[in-house]
């Protein structure tokens, strides 16, 4: 199973993205990060650590569960529906720049759901999107602002992101048809 990103590569990509977020927003006073559960959350946490090192500012981090906003959940066969977990955004998102963080960008449907969910929490000044991997095949007009790595894939393949915090190891794998 080919490894498309190893620990070193992931770490460098996230450091670069942190610099890009810092540069793009000309300071971080009104920026907050929101990770999409589950793997977006540790990535957001790492970006916040990097941003603190770069700017000296503390960045708030929230966690968003989008299960209740999915467009496929009620069509899913029993047993496939994901577990609903808590959304934890312990700060106001009104008039702030929210950087949404997810592991993989594919059809764009998760991002669509995340945008809907965020809207229920307030009216941010802007929402930007960070993904560790963009694997293409968009079904909605959605584009990431910051990308760790573009990975060309076919629809039959699957991209697996593993993170230290949840899986004990940092790596991105591309799995074939079988």
């Amino acid at each position, binding site marked *: 199973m080919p490894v498309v990103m190893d620990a070193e590569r992931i770490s460098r990509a996230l450091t670069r993205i942190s610099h890009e977020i810092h540069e793009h927003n000309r300071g971080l006073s009104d920026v907050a990060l929101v990770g999409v559960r589950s793997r977006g959350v540790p990535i957001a946490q790492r970006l916040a650590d990097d941003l603190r090192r770069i700017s000296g500012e503390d960045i708030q981090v929230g966690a968003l569960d989008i299960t209740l906003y999915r467009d496929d959940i*009620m*069509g899913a066969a029993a047993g496939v529906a994901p577990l609903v977990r808590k959304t934890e955004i312990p700060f106001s998102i009104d008039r702030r720049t929210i950087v949404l963080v997810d592991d993989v960008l594919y059809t764009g449907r998760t991002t669509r759901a995340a945008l809907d969910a965020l809207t229920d929490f307030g009216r941010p000044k802007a929402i930007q999107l960070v993904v560790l991997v963009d694997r293409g095949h968009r079904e909605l007009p959605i584009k990431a602002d910051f990308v760790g790595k573009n990975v060309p894939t076919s629809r039959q393949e699957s991209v697996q992101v593993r993170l230290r915090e949840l899986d004990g190891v940092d790596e991105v794998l591309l799995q074939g048809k079988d």
Partner: protein
Amino acid sequence: MDVASPRQVAAPPLTALRQKHLLGIADLSAEEILLVLDTAEAMKEVGQRTIKKVPTLRGRTVINLFFEPSTRTRTSFEIAEKRLSADTLNVAIASSSVVKGETLVDTAMNLEAMSPSMIVLRHASSGACHLLSRICKAAIVNAGDGMHEHPTQALLDAFTIRERKRRLTGLKVAIVGDLLHSRVLRSNVLLLTKLGAEVWVCAPATLIPAGMCQMGVRVTTRVDEAVEGADVIMMLRIQLERMQGAYFPSQREYFTTFGMTEQRVRRAKPDVIIMHPGPINRGVEIASEVADGSASVILDQVANGVAVRMAVLFLLAGGAAEGADGTEKVA
């Protein structure tokens, strides 16, 4: 497809209920009960937002069919349905065809013809929900059937206990009151024993149903013994409307012998919580100081009821989409 990897941990956690209906706790495994409670945690967070609504059940219709008076349960279900964006409608029996002599089955088949996704049913006859589940395509949610079960009440009680005590296993739970007529008791005993709590039940001998000992609980007629060292005291309502059978001499005597007073509560653990499914009869089964005291979680139970019912509706809606019901897809 994940199976090939040695790093992947064993079986994936359960994320859906195995049955289409919620007829009783008897049908649920411990794992399924915990799934409902975990899902309810997320639903509780929705209720704490400024905008207390998610689009999950958009386009689904839920009928609340209540053949018995109910304030708490019906409002709780209705709020839960609305927070999930379902279209809800309440059939008020006093103004329905039932007063013209229509049977339960005919009423249900007529409602069914309008393709609801779910029917929440409260009925005075035990087994009414099972009956409907056999003839309806809609998922049936039992909101209390006769003296049989009231599963969502037991689930919200368990949620409330877990919220306070962080666990259910190994807790001593004393249930005191009318055991004979109580569907809340049956559901709670089934649930608590499945999750490993030590359950004591206490009532006058006339209000203890036959076969109680076979349910895996300790039975006593002495309140002090039931309450001794308890982590949770759960009171059951003395159903005044069912007390024509001279089960005890007077309400006052009942209160003296079985009523929960501050004095009796002192025998329990210092951090005991007091529960009651409502509506409470002050000065019959429970003293006002206890019902309104700092150990009382009676209003937490009501608040948690909405989150637990959202979890049940959500899990049943997800599970039911699998096959048999053509209802949603045709529409």
